[in-house]
């Protein structure tokens, strides 16, 4: 192989290895093996089908990302609407700066009994953590290979375990701040046991020229419910790679929403494996891009058992010379009868230089199923703009109204009332502040 960037990650691994958590146990061997696989495969390039529209290798070559150092001095949140989007909501807050947990900035107190909240290093000796880290979703191997990089270099992250029947009393907000330049490899482990319930917000912000590599491993027990709302508004020089891997036991319910506004290059991967009957997964998102931003939404839903429901809707607005990607696959295994699987993607191009690549796929091996998929790419209707203007609404306001209405159809799926309103405001603001006219 001739992948200098992969090699530089390998060198970083050699330097960092002694300081990474879990150096003395099973994880040390797992890290070595993961690094070896990663170096052999190299960073994904565009000849790999699942990476056809996003050149991660080139994006990472541009800025040689050395591991981010611990931030020194006071931490200042960027003065942006995204940074304070969830501020008005009563919630627990856990803060990571440059990929490191900061107890001094976090506030998660008086957690209900049965809610175990730790940082990653604290749970690595526990079997459940090991199970989650070692798990693989073999139906999207090309996209999952990159998780090896995270496994080798992961430094910190959230470890949340909620015991049987326990409900997290208020949303848990994970705030990831890139205060400085550099790469941070974050691993979150979330285990909701039988009938447990939680709502998690994630926001990724920062001014640093960073590589944010986040893997979140989720396991939902029977009848467990997880609502997950993610907001990404990092700096233009940042490369964001997020992988969400969820395993759903019988009658469990996952509702995940991602709003992507920031970053030069971002890829959001979601893998859902239905492992028990009667489970339900909603994987939805919206994105608004400008200038030369590139955002890739990649999603694989594996209906491995009968009677599960999945719903995916991604809507995006593309201005300037930005590029959007949606790749989605719904797999229905031979015995997975009574599957209900839906996958839709719609994009709105606001400029002639913007581009969208959409590839929704269905692989159905069962016959008694309801599945649908679809994709549209369009532009704002001139007739609609004229109509609104003929009623006295100025052109910029008319365009904003139509763009917000378009995104709102996806944002309606944000699985938390106050968060939904917060994200709708952000999306409307994206256009109103003129950035949408780049």
């Amino acid at each position, binding site marked *: 192989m001739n992948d200098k960037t992969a090699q530089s990650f390998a060198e970083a691994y050699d330097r960092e290895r002694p300081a990474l958590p879990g150096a003395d146990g099973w994880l040390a061997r797992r890290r070595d093996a993961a690094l070896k696989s990663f170096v052999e495969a190299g960073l994904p390039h565009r000849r790999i089908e699942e990476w056809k529209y996003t050149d991660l290798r080139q994006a990472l070559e541009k800025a040689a990302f050395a591991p981010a150092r611990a931030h020194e001095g006071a931490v200042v949140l960027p003065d942006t609407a995204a940074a304070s989007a969830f501020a008005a909501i009563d919630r627990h807050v856990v803060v990571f700066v440059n990929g490191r947990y900061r107890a001094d900035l976090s506030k998660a107190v008086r957690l209900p009994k049965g809610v175990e909240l730790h940082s990653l290093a604290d749970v690595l000796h526990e079997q459940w953590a090991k199970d989650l880290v070692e798990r693989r979703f073999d139906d999207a191997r090309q996209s999952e290979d990159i998780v090896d990089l995270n496994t080798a270099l992961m430094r910190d992250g959230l470890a949340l375990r909620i015991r049987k029947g326990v409900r997290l009393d208020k949303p848990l907000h994970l705030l990831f701040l890139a205060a400085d330049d550099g790469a941070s490899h974050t691993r979150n482990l979330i285990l909701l046991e039988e009938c447990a319930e939680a709502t998690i917000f994630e926001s990724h912000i920062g001014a640093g020229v960073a590589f944010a590599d986040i893997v979140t491993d989720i396991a939902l027990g029977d009848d467990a419910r997880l609502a997950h709302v993610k907001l990404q508004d990092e700096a233009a020089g940042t490369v964001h790679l997020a992988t969400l891997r969820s395993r759903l036991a019988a009658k469990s319910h996952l509702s995940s929403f991602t709003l992507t506004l920031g970053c030069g290059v971002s890829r959001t991967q979601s893998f859902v494996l239905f492992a028990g009957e009667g489970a339900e997964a909603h994987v939805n998102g919206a994105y608004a891009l400008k200038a030369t931003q590139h955002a890739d939404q990649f999603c694989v839903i594996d209906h491995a058992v009968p009677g599960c429901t999945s719903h995916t809707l991604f809507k995006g607005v593309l201005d300037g010379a930005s590029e959007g990607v949606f790749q989605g696959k719904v797999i229905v295994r031979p015995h997975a009868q009574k599957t209900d699987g839906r996958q839709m993607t719609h994009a709105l191009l606001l400029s002639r230089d913007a581009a969208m690549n959409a590839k929704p796929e269905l692989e159905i091996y069962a016959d008694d199923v309801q599945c649908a998929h679809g994709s549209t790419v369009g532009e704002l*209707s*001139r*007739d*609609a703009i*004229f*109509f*609104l*203007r*003929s*009623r*006295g*609404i*100025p*052109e910029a*306001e*008319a365009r904003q*109204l*139509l763009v*917000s*209405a*378009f995104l*709102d*159809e996806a944002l309606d799926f944000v699985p938390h009332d106050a968060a939904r309103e917060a994200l709708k405001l952000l999306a409307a603001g994206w256009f109103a502040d003129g950035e949408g006219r780049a």
Partner: protein
Amino acid sequence: MLEIKNLHVSVHGKEILKGIDLNIRAGEVHAIMGPNGSGKSTLSYVLSGREGYEVTEGSIRFKGRDLTELNVDERAATGIFLAFQYPIEIPGVTTMTFLKTALNAQRKARGEEELDAVRFLKLVREKAKPLNVPDEMLKRALNVGFSGGEKKRAEILQMALLEPALAVLDETDSGLDIDALKTVAEGVNALRSPERAMLVITHYQRLLDYIVPDAVHVLSGGRIVRSGGKELAHELEKSGYAAYDADAA
């Protein structure tokens, strides 16, 4: 209120209107009738300021101002309202939100205070009731899934709320059954006032039984070929447009 002199309008380089003269005073209702392709809709679009409709000669003055200097939304704020033949569907924008945005945008453009939610709601309900527009309809996305009658009632509601000085009704009767037509006509008639002018564009005389005009003009081949009183509409109903088509050719 509206003075059109020797108006020539081209669309994609093709001349559609070839010298229109028309004067409408406050309080008057004028009807424009004519065969398909005579330029009726072009006249309505050029008054509203739609892109692609180029005034090549002549003038349009509205309340003493040169209308061509104003863009679409400025014209609306000045008091021009176009009721569409085919109202546009606006997915994701509720009728209520749309109405509030439009009214407040116009008030803002005129330097008036914007209405808050409470005052707006009171006003919109007051205007909606006589038009038989229920709250449920106001909560739906504008025109999306509306029947033909609902779309036209929504148009008249917009007119009632925005209180224009000049209302241009483009084939408002199309797609309506007789009951819906009556409801819409009643709505329009209720808005007739000494301060307001109306230009009713229609192919058929039927609408003019309900909205009785002060003057009728026949448009053919891009020119007004005949003007008269309301009885002209009945005459046309009997004789058809054939005679005028021949003139235009």
